[in-house]
Protein backbone atom coordinates (compact mmCIF):
# COMPACT_ATOMS: atom_id res chain seq x y z
CA UNK A 1 0.00 0.00 0.00
CA UNK A 2 2.85 2.36 0.78
CA UNK A 3 4.92 3.83 -1.98
CA UNK A 4 7.80 6.21 -2.59
CA UNK A 5 7.09 9.22 -4.70
CA UNK A 6 9.29 11.62 -6.61
CA UNK A 7 7.74 14.34 -8.68
CA UNK A 8 6.63 17.93 -9.03
CA UNK A 9 3.74 19.41 -7.11
CA UNK A 10 2.23 22.87 -6.75
CA UNK A 11 1.60 25.41 -4.09
CA UNK A 12 0.18 28.92 -4.42
CA UNK A 13 0.99 31.54 -1.81
CA UNK A 14 0.79 35.31 -1.43
CA UNK A 15 3.64 36.95 -3.33
CA UNK A 16 5.62 37.94 -0.24
CA UNK A 17 5.16 34.60 1.55
CA UNK A 18 8.09 32.14 1.84
CA UNK A 19 7.28 29.40 -0.72
CA UNK A 20 8.13 26.44 1.52
CA UNK A 21 6.90 27.82 4.84
CA UNK A 22 4.75 25.53 6.97
CA UNK A 23 3.85 28.25 9.50
CA UNK A 24 0.18 28.53 8.55
CA UNK A 25 -0.57 24.82 8.67
CA UNK A 26 1.42 24.51 11.89
CA UNK A 27 -0.34 27.40 13.59
CA UNK A 28 -3.92 26.44 12.75
CA UNK A 29 -3.69 22.79 11.88
CA UNK A 30 -5.15 21.36 8.69
CA UNK A 31 -7.00 18.33 7.39
CA UNK A 32 -4.12 16.01 8.33
CA UNK A 33 -2.29 17.83 11.10
CA UNK A 34 -3.17 19.26 14.47
CA UNK A 35 -2.09 22.77 15.53
CA UNK A 36 1.58 22.65 16.55
CA UNK A 37 2.45 19.91 14.06
CA UNK A 38 4.28 21.03 10.90
CA UNK A 39 2.87 19.93 7.56
CA UNK A 40 3.33 20.98 3.96
CA UNK A 41 0.22 20.83 1.81
CA UNK A 42 0.73 20.62 -1.96
CA UNK A 43 -1.45 19.90 -4.92
CA UNK A 44 -0.91 17.65 -7.94
CA UNK A 45 -1.93 20.48 -10.27
CA UNK A 46 -1.88 24.28 -10.46
CA UNK A 47 -5.64 24.10 -10.78
CA UNK A 48 -6.01 22.19 -7.51
CA UNK A 49 -3.77 24.63 -5.63
CA UNK A 50 -5.56 27.63 -7.16
CA UNK A 51 -8.96 26.28 -6.09
CA UNK A 52 -7.89 26.07 -2.42
CA UNK A 53 -6.21 29.46 -2.28
CA UNK A 54 -8.97 31.33 -4.13
CA UNK A 55 -11.64 29.72 -1.91
CA UNK A 56 -9.96 30.77 1.34
CA UNK A 57 -9.06 34.20 0.07
CA UNK A 58 -12.63 34.94 -0.99
CA UNK A 59 -14.22 33.40 2.11
CA UNK A 60 -11.97 35.23 4.54
CA UNK A 61 -12.23 38.52 2.66
CA UNK A 62 -15.91 38.71 1.87
CA UNK A 63 -17.26 36.38 4.61
CA UNK A 64 -19.27 34.37 2.10
CA UNK A 65 -18.92 30.61 2.65
CA UNK A 66 -18.08 28.57 -0.43
CA UNK A 67 -18.86 24.86 -0.59
CA UNK A 68 -17.07 24.58 -3.86
CA UNK A 69 -14.84 26.89 -5.84
CA UNK A 70 -15.31 27.11 -9.59
CA UNK A 71 -15.99 29.78 -12.18
CA UNK A 72 -19.72 29.66 -11.41
CA UNK A 73 -19.42 30.04 -7.63
CA UNK A 74 -16.83 32.82 -8.04
CA UNK A 75 -19.16 34.65 -10.43
CA UNK A 76 -21.90 34.49 -7.76
CA UNK A 77 -19.53 36.09 -5.24
CA UNK A 78 -18.49 38.74 -7.75
CA UNK A 79 -22.13 39.78 -8.15
CA UNK A 80 -22.59 40.08 -4.36
CA UNK A 81 -19.43 42.08 -3.70
CA UNK A 82 -19.26 45.88 -4.29
CA UNK A 83 -17.75 46.46 -7.73
CA UNK A 84 -14.86 48.61 -6.48
CA UNK A 85 -13.78 45.96 -3.97
CA UNK A 86 -13.78 43.31 -6.67
CA UNK A 87 -11.62 45.60 -8.79
CA UNK A 88 -9.21 46.04 -5.85
CA UNK A 89 -8.91 42.28 -5.35
CA UNK A 90 -7.42 42.03 -8.85
CA UNK A 91 -4.35 43.90 -7.56
CA UNK A 92 -3.40 41.15 -5.12
CA UNK A 93 -0.43 39.13 -6.32
CA UNK A 94 0.30 35.48 -5.64
CA UNK A 95 3.04 33.04 -6.58
CA UNK A 96 2.59 29.69 -8.25
CA UNK A 97 5.43 27.60 -6.86
CA UNK A 98 6.56 24.37 -8.51
CA UNK A 99 8.08 22.10 -5.88
CA UNK A 100 10.06 18.91 -6.37
CA UNK A 101 9.59 16.29 -3.66
CA UNK A 102 11.02 12.94 -2.87
CA UNK A 103 9.02 11.22 -0.13
CA UNK A 104 8.92 7.64 1.11
CA UNK A 105 6.15 5.79 2.92
CA UNK A 106 3.32 7.62 1.24
CA UNK A 107 -0.23 6.32 1.50
CA UNK A 108 -2.62 7.12 -1.33
CA UNK A 109 -6.11 7.23 0.14
CA UNK A 110 -7.28 8.67 -3.17
CA UNK A 111 -7.22 5.10 -4.50
CA UNK A 112 -10.33 3.06 -3.92
CA UNK A 113 -8.40 -0.19 -3.35
CA UNK A 114 -6.37 1.44 -0.55
CA UNK A 115 -9.52 2.82 1.08
CA UNK A 116 -11.14 -0.63 0.88
CA UNK A 117 -8.13 -2.29 2.51
CA UNK A 118 -8.17 0.26 5.31
CA UNK A 119 -11.96 0.28 5.62
CA UNK A 120 -12.26 4.03 5.07
CA UNK A 121 -15.02 5.60 3.02
CA UNK A 122 -14.51 8.71 0.93
CA UNK A 123 -17.02 10.78 2.95
CA UNK A 124 -14.73 10.40 5.96
CA UNK A 125 -11.83 11.85 3.99
CA UNK A 126 -13.67 14.91 2.80
CA UNK A 127 -15.77 15.50 5.93
CA UNK A 128 -14.85 16.82 9.36
CA UNK A 129 -11.17 17.53 10.07
CA UNK A 130 -11.57 16.00 13.53
CA UNK A 131 -12.11 12.62 11.86
CA UNK A 132 -9.17 12.91 9.45
CA UNK A 133 -6.84 14.16 12.20
CA UNK A 134 -7.73 11.13 14.33
CA UNK A 135 -7.36 8.82 11.35
CA UNK A 136 -3.88 10.12 10.53
CA UNK A 137 -2.66 9.42 14.07
CA UNK A 138 -3.58 5.75 13.64
CA UNK A 139 -2.07 5.59 10.15
CA UNK A 140 1.13 7.31 11.24
CA UNK A 141 1.72 4.79 14.02
CA UNK A 142 0.82 1.84 11.83
CA UNK A 143 2.80 2.76 8.70
CA UNK A 144 5.46 5.31 9.76
CA UNK A 145 3.93 7.61 7.21
CA UNK A 146 5.90 10.48 5.72
CA UNK A 147 3.06 11.72 3.55
CA UNK A 148 -0.48 11.13 2.39
CA UNK A 149 -2.15 11.58 -1.00
CA UNK A 150 -5.85 12.42 -0.73
CA UNK A 151 -8.75 13.69 -2.82
CA UNK A 152 -9.61 17.38 -2.54
CA UNK A 153 -12.85 18.02 -0.68
CA UNK A 154 -13.57 20.85 -3.12
CA UNK A 155 -13.20 18.59 -6.13
CA UNK A 156 -12.54 14.90 -5.40
CA UNK A 157 -11.08 14.47 -8.90
CA UNK A 158 -8.14 16.64 -7.85
CA UNK A 159 -5.45 15.20 -5.61
CA UNK A 160 -3.35 16.80 -2.90
CA UNK A 161 -0.21 15.65 -1.09
CA UNK A 162 0.44 16.39 2.57
CA UNK A 163 3.99 15.88 3.83
CA UNK A 164 3.88 15.20 7.54
CA UNK A 165 7.29 13.97 8.54
CA UNK A 166 9.37 16.59 10.36
CA UNK A 167 12.68 15.16 9.12
CA UNK A 168 11.53 15.12 5.51
CA UNK A 169 10.27 18.69 5.82
CA UNK A 170 13.69 19.83 7.01
CA UNK A 171 15.68 17.71 4.54
CA UNK A 172 16.78 18.73 1.09
CA UNK A 173 14.19 16.38 -0.43
CA UNK A 174 11.74 19.24 -0.90
CA UNK A 175 13.03 21.84 -3.34
CA UNK A 176 11.54 24.87 -5.00
CA UNK A 177 11.94 24.45 -8.76
CA UNK A 178 10.30 27.63 -10.01
CA UNK A 179 8.03 30.42 -8.92
CA UNK A 180 5.75 32.50 -11.15
CA UNK A 181 4.04 35.72 -10.14
CA UNK A 182 0.30 35.75 -10.94
CA UNK A 183 -2.60 38.13 -10.45
CA UNK A 184 -5.88 37.13 -8.84
CA UNK A 185 -7.65 37.05 -12.21
CA UNK A 186 -4.93 34.76 -13.58
CA UNK A 187 -5.57 32.43 -10.64
CA UNK A 188 -9.27 32.36 -11.45
CA UNK A 189 -8.51 31.62 -15.09
CA UNK A 190 -6.59 28.53 -13.91
CA UNK A 191 -9.92 27.14 -12.69
CA UNK A 192 -11.46 26.95 -16.17
Amino acid sequence: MLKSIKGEYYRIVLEIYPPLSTSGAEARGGRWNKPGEPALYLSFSKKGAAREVVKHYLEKTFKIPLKTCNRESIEKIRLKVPRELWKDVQQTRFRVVRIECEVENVLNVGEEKTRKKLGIDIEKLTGSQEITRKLIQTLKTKFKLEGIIYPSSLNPKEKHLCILDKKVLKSGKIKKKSSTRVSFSELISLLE
Partner: protein
Amino acid sequence: MRISMRAREFKKMKPRELKQKITKIIEAVNISDPLITIDVTAPTPLGENLSFIKKVLMIEWKEIAEILGVSPRTLQRWRRDETTPKEKTDKLEKIYNICTILLAAYPTERLRKYFLHSPESSLSSWSPLDALKKGKIDEVYQLLLVIAEGTYA
Protein backbone atom coordinates in the same frame (compact mmCIF):
# COMPACT_ATOMS: atom_id res chain seq x y z
CA MET B 1 21.51 32.14 3.23
CA ARG B 2 22.92 35.09 5.11
CA ILE B 3 24.74 36.09 8.28
CA SER B 4 23.37 39.17 10.00
CA MET B 5 25.21 40.73 12.89
CA ARG B 6 25.71 44.06 14.52
CA ALA B 7 29.05 45.84 14.05
CA ARG B 8 29.92 45.50 17.74
CA GLU B 9 29.47 41.73 17.49
CA PHE B 10 31.69 41.65 14.40
CA LYS B 11 34.40 43.63 16.14
CA LYS B 12 34.48 41.12 19.00
CA MET B 13 34.75 38.16 16.64
CA LYS B 14 38.04 36.38 15.98
CA PRO B 15 38.93 36.09 12.24
CA ARG B 16 38.85 32.31 12.55
CA GLU B 17 35.28 32.30 13.88
CA LEU B 18 34.09 34.44 11.01
CA LYS B 19 35.79 32.17 8.48
CA GLN B 20 34.15 29.14 10.08
CA LYS B 21 30.71 30.78 9.87
CA ILE B 22 31.12 31.68 6.21
CA THR B 23 32.51 28.22 5.39
CA LYS B 24 29.39 26.63 6.93
CA ILE B 25 27.19 28.74 4.68
CA ILE B 26 29.25 27.90 1.59
CA GLU B 27 28.82 24.20 2.36
CA ALA B 28 25.10 24.60 2.97
CA VAL B 29 24.37 26.38 -0.32
CA ASN B 30 26.06 23.51 -2.15
CA ILE B 31 27.27 25.47 -5.18
CA SER B 32 30.85 24.96 -6.43
CA ASP B 33 32.04 28.58 -6.35
CA PRO B 34 29.46 30.87 -4.75
CA LEU B 35 29.93 34.63 -4.71
CA ILE B 36 30.32 36.13 -1.22
CA THR B 37 29.23 39.73 -0.76
CA ILE B 38 29.13 41.75 2.42
CA ASP B 39 26.47 44.44 2.79
CA VAL B 40 26.69 46.88 5.63
CA THR B 41 23.23 48.30 6.26
CA ALA B 42 21.66 50.36 9.00
CA PRO B 43 18.91 48.57 10.92
CA THR B 44 15.44 49.95 10.21
CA PRO B 45 14.71 52.46 12.94
CA LEU B 46 11.81 51.50 15.20
CA GLY B 47 10.00 54.72 14.32
CA GLU B 48 9.88 53.64 10.66
CA ASN B 49 8.44 50.25 11.56
CA LEU B 50 5.77 51.90 13.69
CA SER B 51 4.88 54.27 10.85
CA PHE B 52 4.51 51.24 8.57
CA ILE B 53 2.11 49.63 11.09
CA LYS B 54 0.07 52.85 11.27
CA LYS B 55 -0.05 53.14 7.47
CA VAL B 56 -1.25 49.56 7.03
CA LEU B 57 -3.81 49.52 9.85
CA MET B 58 -4.98 53.08 9.08
CA ILE B 59 -5.59 53.96 12.74
CA GLU B 60 -4.52 56.60 15.27
CA TRP B 61 -1.35 56.37 17.38
CA LYS B 62 -3.42 55.96 20.56
CA GLU B 63 -5.05 52.87 19.02
CA ILE B 64 -1.62 51.43 18.19
CA ALA B 65 -0.58 52.05 21.81
CA GLU B 66 -3.74 50.19 22.89
CA ILE B 67 -2.90 47.22 20.63
CA LEU B 68 0.71 47.11 21.89
CA GLY B 69 -0.40 47.51 25.50
CA VAL B 70 1.78 50.55 26.19
CA SER B 71 1.04 54.15 27.12
CA PRO B 72 0.79 56.76 24.34
CA ARG B 73 3.82 58.47 25.96
CA THR B 74 5.97 55.32 25.66
CA LEU B 75 4.87 54.86 22.07
CA GLN B 76 5.79 58.45 21.32
CA ARG B 77 9.31 57.83 22.64
CA TRP B 78 9.63 54.69 20.51
CA ARG B 79 8.40 56.59 17.46
CA ARG B 80 11.07 59.22 17.93
CA ASP B 81 13.66 56.47 18.49
CA GLU B 82 14.41 58.04 21.89
CA THR B 83 14.08 54.70 23.66
CA THR B 84 13.89 51.11 22.49
CA PRO B 85 11.36 48.67 23.89
CA LYS B 86 12.72 46.34 26.56
CA GLU B 87 9.53 44.31 26.54
CA LYS B 88 6.63 43.93 24.12
CA THR B 89 9.16 43.20 21.36
CA ASP B 90 7.41 39.91 20.51
CA LYS B 91 4.11 41.72 20.18
CA LEU B 92 5.69 44.38 18.04
CA GLU B 93 7.26 41.80 15.74
CA LYS B 94 3.99 39.88 15.40
CA ILE B 95 2.06 43.03 14.55
CA TYR B 96 4.72 43.99 12.02
CA ASN B 97 4.38 40.53 10.42
CA ILE B 98 0.59 40.84 10.42
CA CYS B 99 0.89 44.17 8.61
CA THR B 100 3.30 42.74 6.04
CA ILE B 101 0.82 39.99 5.11
CA LEU B 102 -2.13 42.42 5.27
CA LEU B 103 -0.50 44.78 2.80
CA ALA B 104 0.25 41.96 0.36
CA ALA B 105 -3.23 40.42 0.66
CA TYR B 106 -5.06 43.74 0.50
CA PRO B 107 -2.93 46.24 -1.41
CA THR B 108 -5.57 48.97 -1.57
CA GLU B 109 -6.69 50.96 1.46
CA ARG B 110 -10.34 50.37 0.60
CA LEU B 111 -9.99 46.59 0.54
CA ARG B 112 -7.82 46.57 3.67
CA LYS B 113 -10.32 48.71 5.54
CA TYR B 114 -13.13 46.38 4.48
CA PHE B 115 -11.24 43.34 5.78
CA LEU B 116 -10.09 44.99 9.02
CA HIS B 117 -13.60 46.14 9.96
CA SER B 118 -15.68 43.09 8.93
CA PRO B 119 -16.70 40.62 11.67
CA GLU B 120 -14.90 37.29 11.30
CA SER B 121 -16.30 34.00 12.62
CA SER B 122 -12.88 32.56 13.54
CA LEU B 123 -12.31 35.63 15.76
CA SER B 124 -15.51 35.09 17.80
CA SER B 125 -17.21 37.51 15.40
CA TRP B 126 -14.83 40.36 16.25
CA SER B 127 -13.46 42.28 13.31
CA PRO B 128 -9.68 41.74 12.85
CA LEU B 129 -9.00 45.27 14.09
CA ASP B 130 -11.16 44.88 17.20
CA ALA B 131 -9.58 41.47 17.81
CA LEU B 132 -6.13 43.11 17.76
CA LYS B 133 -7.33 45.66 20.32
CA LYS B 134 -8.65 42.80 22.48
CA GLY B 135 -5.20 41.20 22.44
CA LYS B 136 -6.08 38.41 20.01
CA ILE B 137 -2.88 38.96 18.05
CA ASP B 138 -2.06 35.28 17.50
CA GLU B 139 -5.58 34.58 16.23
CA VAL B 140 -5.40 37.43 13.71
CA TYR B 141 -1.96 36.24 12.61
CA GLN B 142 -3.30 32.71 12.09
CA LEU B 143 -6.20 34.02 10.04
CA LEU B 144 -3.78 35.88 7.79
CA LEU B 145 -1.60 32.80 7.40
CA VAL B 146 -4.63 30.95 6.01
CA ILE B 147 -5.05 33.74 3.48
CA ALA B 148 -1.32 33.69 2.68
CA GLU B 149 -0.97 29.95 2.08
CA GLY B 150 -4.50 28.55 1.88
CA THR B 151 -5.34 25.18 3.43
CA TYR B 152 -5.61 22.17 1.20
CA ALA B 153 -8.75 20.49 2.53
